[in-house]
């Protein structure tokens, strides 16, 4: 278990979690980026950049 940086809620990462993976906090619905897995560190996923995505 690790802590949501937005709401301090508990977030459980799947065993397969990897750096750069996006997980969603079940408490506050924030999108969180797995920055590191051992030990687990979560950060708020950044807002979109100008030329991102589909």
């Amino acid at each position, binding site marked *: 278990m690790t802590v949501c940086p937005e709401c301090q809620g508990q977030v459980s990462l799947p065993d397969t979690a990897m750096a*750069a993976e996006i997980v969603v906090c079940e408490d506050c619905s924030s999108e969180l*980026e797995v920055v590191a897995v051992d030990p687990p560190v979560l950060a708020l996923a950044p807002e*979109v950049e100008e*030329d*991102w995505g*589909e």
Partner: protein
Amino acid sequence: MTGDGDAGAWAAAPVALVATRIRVEERMLLDAFQRRAVPCHHVDDRSLVYRVGGPPPPWRAVVNRALSASRRLEVSRWCEAVGTPVLNTPDTLARCDNKIATALALHQAGIPVPHTVVALDPAAGGDAAEEIGFPAVVKPTTGSWGRGVARIGDRDAAEAVFELRGQLASPTQRLGLLQEFRYGRDLRVLVVGGSAVAAITRESGHWVRNTGRGARARAYALDAELASLAERAAAAVGGGVLGVDLLETDTGERLVLEVNGAVEFHGLSAAHTDAPIAETIADHVLSGAPG
């Protein structure tokens, strides 16, 4: 890389999933390769450094899911230059990531598109809007998730939107694409390697219907005509793994709006729990025939 006759070594090489983030789609693709016992490594596109004239990367194929359209294009350009199979190809990405290029390619292939007018400078936006008629939709030529799209009802609104766009720093964002606004049903068809796989329709209280903006996706039956139209649209932009966005008007006319070259498919997967979408994409990558 495939031309040296060492097919065994090539088959043993890992697939690279070049991605900025491991979202639902990337996780599904990683799992699909794992189920095929094919090693698939995540490579963060922001970590890539390569020498012009240097060796190809040690990957049998690249699934390019970089989030930034600029970086995505460079990744595919590099892969193609060194002979590494890549999805999507740089030609396809260049057509999909510029909506002017998309509209021109679709029209050239005889595919029905909404009436479209381009204004190369914001000062011409009012005239361009008159040329289309009202209501019209103003779109940025790049970008996604419906960001920066405005519906305008008259020339004053058009000039206001274009005045704002004229203040943007990026020359690309100052380009204007206007399309007639049509009421109808929004459809998305996923095309993989020339074959339409599945379709969804998106519903939302807002006229910008995008699952990235909270629109709900529902499965939509893929009839032969819809499949054929989506496949032709995919071919027109160069083929690959593509999300073809269409509008079915109240009169039953089907128009192709956009083709997405870095397609999100979680909405499609959720609506089609029986359709193995990531599996289909993985099989296509391993078939060694991108495009």
